[in-house]
């Protein structure tokens, strides 16, 4: 099925960018977990295995036409919901939230996969339901349900970061397919009205985390401390950085979760403004490449799909980086390809596979 024309259209720049970011991520995970003991296997090695697995999955995805995925979007989406329900009952609980499914010796976070499930399901819906005059509220009932189920299940875990991401991905796709101005206004007012209700459902520690962003003195010992230490780490990197393995903040473990959500503070501290700039450039390149693929896609399905994946990569990067540098509240979102985490790595590579898939088939006629 992979004929010569497909290989000719293979997006080498995209692959190179992604591989580069991943390798950079492994280097930083190595640095941030150097002094950590108690893991059977060093975490950077585990991350390498995950990345290789993700890359394999990406090639597998290339093998099929992306329209096949769109065709099976709903069953896949239901499968994701099923996994999320499974987590509710059998999930492993760590520090108060139930997010992990234990499959033998590996653990798996279905909420990550749900992002891809959501993107595929929305693509399927909006491909079939083309409305050139802009969508009204009535047209959005089904997509709203498609968003509502995973958001509810993830909110129950609770995983506020993923809830925020799912909603941002959803909003980006809506923005792309085009809503009537009136619909936007209604949605905006609706969200504003709903926010206080949602606030009631937040756990106390989540509320504290959000409020601490506005006023770090509220929780000076945990989130507040976190924000301050993260800022010190980033700022102390100055222009050239302290050098690989030389970050005092990270090596002395001032920062909790420095190999997962706060990996960028290690990058900024050890590689300085230069390194951060370079990393941000790569991420920007990745996201704009995704947008370009959406733009050049020959069909609506490809365009929506590529927009969805790009939106996922963009919002995840922005929320995470913003969190580390202290301009976004700490909600707990991993930095794609850099933060340590198996499911996140695999999900991102799946997204990349989908982007490449669309890019490769942009000149092909439909069967």
């Amino acid at each position, binding site marked *: 099925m992979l004929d010569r024309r497909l290989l000719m259209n293979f997006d080498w720049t995209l692959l190179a960018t992604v591989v580069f970011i991943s390798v950079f991520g492994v280097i930083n995970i190595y640095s941030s977990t150097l002094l950590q003991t108690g893991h059977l296997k060093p975490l950077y090695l585990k991350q390498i295995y995950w990345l290789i697995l993700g890359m394999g999955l990406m090639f597998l995805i290339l093998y099929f036409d992306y329209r096949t995925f769109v065709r099976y979007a709903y069953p896949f989406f239901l499968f994701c919901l099923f996994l999320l329900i499974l987590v509710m009952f059998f999930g492993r609980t760590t520090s108060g939230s139930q997010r992990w499914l234990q499959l033998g010796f590996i653990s798996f976070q279905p909420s990550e996969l749900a992002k891809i499930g959501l993107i595929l399901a929305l693509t399927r819906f909006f491909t079939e339901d*083309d409305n050139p005059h802009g969508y009204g509220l009535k047209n959005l009932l089904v997509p709203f349900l498609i968003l509502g189920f995973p958001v509810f299940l993830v909110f129950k875990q609770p995983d506020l970061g993923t809830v925020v991401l799912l909603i941002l991905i959803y909003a980006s796709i809506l923005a792309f397919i085009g809503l009537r101005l009136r619909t936007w206004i209604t949605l905006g007012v609706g969200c504003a009205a709903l926010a206080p209700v949602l606030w009631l459902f937040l756990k106390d520690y989540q509320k504290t985390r959000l409020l601490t962003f506005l006023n770090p003195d509220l929780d000076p*010992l945990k989130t507040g401390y976190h924000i301050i230490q993260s800022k010190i780490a980033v*700022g102390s990197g100055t222009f050239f950085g302290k050098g690989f393995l030389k970050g005092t903040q990270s090596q002395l473990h001032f920062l909790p979760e420095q190999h997962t959500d706060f990996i960028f503070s290690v990058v900024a501290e050890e590689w300085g403004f230069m390194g951060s700039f370079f990393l941000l450039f790569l991420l920007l390149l990745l996201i704009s490449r995704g947008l370009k693929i959406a733009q050049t896609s020959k069909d609506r399905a490809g365009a929506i799909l590529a927009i969805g994946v790009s939106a996922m990569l963009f919002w995840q990067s922005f929320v995470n980086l913003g969190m580390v540098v202290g301009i976004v509240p700490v909600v707990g979102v991993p930095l794609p390809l850099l933060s340590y985490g198996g499911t996140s790595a695999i999900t991102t590579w799946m997204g990349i596979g989908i982007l490449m898939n669309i890019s490769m088939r942009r000149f092909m006629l439909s069967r």
Partner: protein
Amino acid sequence: MRLKLDKNSASETKPAFVYANIVIIVAFSLIFARLWHLQIIKGDYFKDLSENNRIRIQEIAAPRGIIYDREGIPLVDSFPSFDVSLFPQDVPDMPALIPALSRAVSLNPERLQAKIEAAQGFSPARPLKIKTDITREDLAMVETRRLDLPGVMVDMVIRRNYSYENLAAHLIGYLGEISPEELEQEEFINHKIGHFVGKYGIEQNFETDLMGENGGRQIEVNALGRKMRVLGNLEPNPGNNLFLTLDLELQKAAEGAMAGKKGALVAMDPQNGDILAMASKPDFDPNLFARGISPENWKKITGNPSSPLQNRATQGQYPPASVYKIVTAIAGLEEKIITPETTFHCPGAFPFGNRDYLCWKKEGHGRVNLRRAIIESCDVYFYNLGLRLGVDRIAKYAFGLGLGKATGFPLGHEKPGLVPTSAWKMKRFRIPWQAGENLSVAIGQGFNLTTPLQVASALSAVANGGRLYRPRVVQSVKAPHGETLKEFPPVEGKILHVSPETLEVIRESLWGVVNSPGGTGGRARIDGFNVAGKTGTAQVVQRREGRGELNLPEHQDHAWFACFAPAYHPRITVVVLIEHGGHGGAAAAPVAKKVLEKYYLRQKDKHPSPLQVAFKPIDDRPEGR
């Protein structure tokens, strides 16, 4: 399902792409601007901060809630104590510090050295505990030599104080360091390694009420580790206070009466199920656990073959022995097998099948009616009754009195006891019920098992006219400023389906056990306080004809005494079990009497006219005993 493909609309540049690019550029510019601000403009400031990261976190522990008795007397409280800790990062010259510090806190320098080495690799923002609960002298030493001890800090912590030591230790429980499993649970989300949480008893079951919320302080220190300024402060919230149903004076009397014995005592208010006193021996001192129990002490407690951590009142299961005759008697009267006047002849043994079932009194009781049989605890009378009733009809009334299942005691880990039935035996052993077993069951031997608490709650129901209450230990949870947060009113369970006439006969007989000549419980008699009760002597080893008395201590019988007073309008139920104590009347009744006396004397003090109910002594002993 067909997908609409080949739409060209996507290939032309939609304004959406322009907007998307703008959003992305703006977002990344924000991050860049922020990075520029942090790394370039304020970079030197942060670099300086990071090179000698001067931010320290000091925890301010929340005082745990106070536990009060029913009169509002504190049983458990907390008081401040002082810990010495060290920030190794702030020590310029560790080899010089160690001898100075070891002198100041009277700690062996080698041990100190080992402690510091063991802590390497931990977060430097968190202090390393050097010594907990230092003496006032050490505190003064450290404070006066502050300048010679860079990096050393003194923290005030709150220490749990069990003022009455072993008193009600099994009810109150103890604290222990939080386990990794507990750390994963949501209720402990604010806890960290090293925190102490309730591990047993009320301390464990009411952990969330008692724990409060720790506060803390984020401070900036100078190069010598001295506090420069406080960056953030979070006041702790003290835990909530508990009010128990326990009566300190009565509990003291119970502990005193049980001292040196092995067993349990339960004192209950029969009118509502309140536990007034509960003692289990041997016991332990919860103070030993308050700041982490030493391995030696832990070994001493867990290695003790008498398991001092077990609450024998709720977890010890013993054959109820003759105390169970109350159940058999109720069953006999209610099932109309006998009337109170029905008599049986007791020659000292009851031949059945191919063996003789003995009465405890070898020479026999002669011809006795029900009252006499209870008063003198005649076994043969109840063999006759048991044979006529059968196990299942006895079980019906035993279940009715709440035996054979947990009473619903709020602190958990309660044992259910056992009320045998023929169906149970078939299921358990696949052997049909034997007629001879009816005899053993009727006198509370055989398969029967009860906890002292079950007996107390069943007897209370008999005493109060048939209301079975769930035992209550905690009355209410109150906030530190006094507002009532939770209340646990008495819970009335089942009403016994037993006629008032039957209960009347039983109560009369139980009064006779203590107050009538020849009664087995005479040693619990208190003039003016009409005590009614039943003795029990549970065989640990089956005594058969021809086998001599066994004299090893572990072969001695368990002694029971279960009583309430006054016989009419009872105010208190007391159940005593002494493991291997011998005869119930001799070993357990005097123990119960001490607690009853305490109650009675106090009651007399409180009310100028003593609580005396006229009660006509009965003497219905038939001739020829």
